[in-house]
């Protein structure tokens, strides 16, 4: 839920963490200093991208027009895949330790439970289905990690005011408290949010659907016995005709989302004298403190292309979704991880620039999928005509009695990673594979044991670059250039419940090529160096 407040601007939020502006030597340079990568925007997407690139050895400059992290939970739901990415980036543990872990969602019609779901019924994963964590915590942990990495130069209160595309680089003009300066970027990455000034500077159309509805979001501090579950009400008795959502967050903070309808008055609705009674009706008591209130409307839309020569868009600057399903920040972090390894290989000259076309293709497909899901959820949650409302209510009525209708109840289809089905980077399967591992999808995690007998997780054991995962057979294979070789049965052992064997349909000799972003690029029933070499070349864009 990265959509910013429509009424109250972000600037009105109270400051929680303050960072300092520091003068850069670039500001004293006579000619603009050239940098390989400049990221605009130090939000979850920009910082994740910076850390990923820096872990791969790149020097990164991030600029942000602000110098603080503001209050308000905003994007609170972080999905399993995002947590896996952040774990690889060295921030998984503080996120998990601070966040509220949950996996069960309950949907109510009026005061009656109609449907409940479990997002991760299967065990044997390091990361849970979801955590709830205020965005300011997530940003704080990312900012701390960023500050600890010598490869990252984070410049607060550096606002991009102009860009000039010059073939193989972009000249960027920045405004600071000490005046303007310029720098050159081989690659300029726009992670500057839904209102992306860079998108405006390039005059890129952002087309899609604006939904005519208003939602009130509030963080409330209270001690309560509600379980750590996602509770969603259609037409609740405390808020007739609308919808409501309740989430538990750390520090006894509860997040409440209330649908208000399009006619609602932006300023009136945010006044405590109007907000408090609504929440009192919802909670049934007045024993709470209001921490933060905001209003939002939202859009479902994206730009046509994410790569514009040397300017690349990621996260909300490229696509926006409705908040139902937690697909905003989660998909943005996945953009970052898709881009990081590709940009790294291109900068190193180990892959051609064509590899970046696959970023556009794969993440555009992901954006389309997220937009489709969140649009459908919005249609279900906020019916637009009386008959749509009747159909929706009919589904809810039938859900109590029939299984098919329960599956139709849509209070948000929660973020799952997109499977890159039509990517040129994948080598099509020659033989069928069962199990939950899918070509083009992030590989499933599994509990494993190292050769020395220590417990670990499969995702944790994967290399930073390409990994070849080979199931031990009669012969020990030789390593293939450009990939780390891990032999299951020698370097890593499956657990007693054979999670790995089941999830990967692993037979002796089976060999899997895993991309640096942990997506499955190819799999074979036996190990063949030439075939694997070709699959790696293909995954680096050779076949595109």
């Amino acid at each position, binding site marked *: 839920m990265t959509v910013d407040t429509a009424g109250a601007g972000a600037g009105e939020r109270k400051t929680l963490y303050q960072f300092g502006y520091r003068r850069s030597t670039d500001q004293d340079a006579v000619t603009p200093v050239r940098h390989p990568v400049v990221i605009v925007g130090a939000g979850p997407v920009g910082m994740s991208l910076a850390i990923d690139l820096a872990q791969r050895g790149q020097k990164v400059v991030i600029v942000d027009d602000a110098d603080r992290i503001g209050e308000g939970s905003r994007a609170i739901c972080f999905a399993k895949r995002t947590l896996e990415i952040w774990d690889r980036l060295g921030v998984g543990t503080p996120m998990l330790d601070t966040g509220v872990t949950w996996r069960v969602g309950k949907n109510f019609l009026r005061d009656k439970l109609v449907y409940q779901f479990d997002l991760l019924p299967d065990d044997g994963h390091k990361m849970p289905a979801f955590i709830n964590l205020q965005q300011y915590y997530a940003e704080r942990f990312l900012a701390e990690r960023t500050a600890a990495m010598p490869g990252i130069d984070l410049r607060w209160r550096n606002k991009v005011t102009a860009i000039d595309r010059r073939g193989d680089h972009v000249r960027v003009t920045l405004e600071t408290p000490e005046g303007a300066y310029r720098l050159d970027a081989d690659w300029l990455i726009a992670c500057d949010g839904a209102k992306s000034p860079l998108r405006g500077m390039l005059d890129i159309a952002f087309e899609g659907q604006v939904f005519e509805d208003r939602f009130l979001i509030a963080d409330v501090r209270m001690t309560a016995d509600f379980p750590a579950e996602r509770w969603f009400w259609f037409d609740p008795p405390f808020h007739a005709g609308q919808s409501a959502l309740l989430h538990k967050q750390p520090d006894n903070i509860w997040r409440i989302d209330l649908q208000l309808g399009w006619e609602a008055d932006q300023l009136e609705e945010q006044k405590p004298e109007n907000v408090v009674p609504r929440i009192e009706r919802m909670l049934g008591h007045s024993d709470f403190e209001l921490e933060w209130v905001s209003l939002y409307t939202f859009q479902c839309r994206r730009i046509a292309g994410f790569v514009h020569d040397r300017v690349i868009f990621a996260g909300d600057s490229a696509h926006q979704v409705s908040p139902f399903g937690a697909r905003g920040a989660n998909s943005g972090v996945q953009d970052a991880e898709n881009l990081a390894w590709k940009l790294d290989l291109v900068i190193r000259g180990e892959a051609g620039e064509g590899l970046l076309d696959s970023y556009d293709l794969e993440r555009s497909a992901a954006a389309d999928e997220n937009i489709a899901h969140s649009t459908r959820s919005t249609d279900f949650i906020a019916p637009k005509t*009386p*008959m749509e409302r*009747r*159909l929706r*209510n*009919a*589904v809810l*009525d*039938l859900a109590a009695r*029939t299984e*098919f*209708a329960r599956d*139709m109840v849509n209070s948000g289809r929660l973020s799952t990673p997109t499977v890159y089905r039509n990517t040129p980077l994948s080598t099509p399967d020659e033989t069928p594979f069962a199990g939950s591992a899918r070509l083009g999808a992030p590989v499933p995690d599994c509990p494993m044991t190292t050769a020395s007998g220590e417990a670990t997780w499969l995702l944790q054991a994967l290399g930073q670059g390409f990994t070849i995962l080979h199931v031990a057979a009669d012969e020990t294979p030789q390593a293939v250039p450009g990939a780390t070789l891990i032999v299951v049965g020698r370097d890593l052992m499956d657990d007693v419940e054979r999670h790995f064997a089941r999830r990967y349909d692993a037979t002796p000799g089976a060999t899997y090529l895993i991309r640096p972003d942990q997506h499955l690029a190819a799999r074979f029933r036996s190990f063949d160096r030439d075939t694997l070499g070709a699959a790696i070349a293909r995954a680096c864009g050779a076949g595109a």
Partner: protein
Amino acid sequence: MADLITTSQLAVPDALYNALVDAHRDLDDEQSAELNARLVLLLANHIGDPDVLAQAIALARHTD
């Protein structure tokens, strides 16, 4: 692709029509509309085939 069946499948067409009429008797407009919504969902799930449903929707929307 399966085709929507538009020839009669009913041994006693009048009885089926009557069953529908009976279901709506004594209901006001709103209740009738709600009943229809539930009925459509139940029948659509029973049919299950999206191609058949698309043809039925197209035929039902076309009125002249």
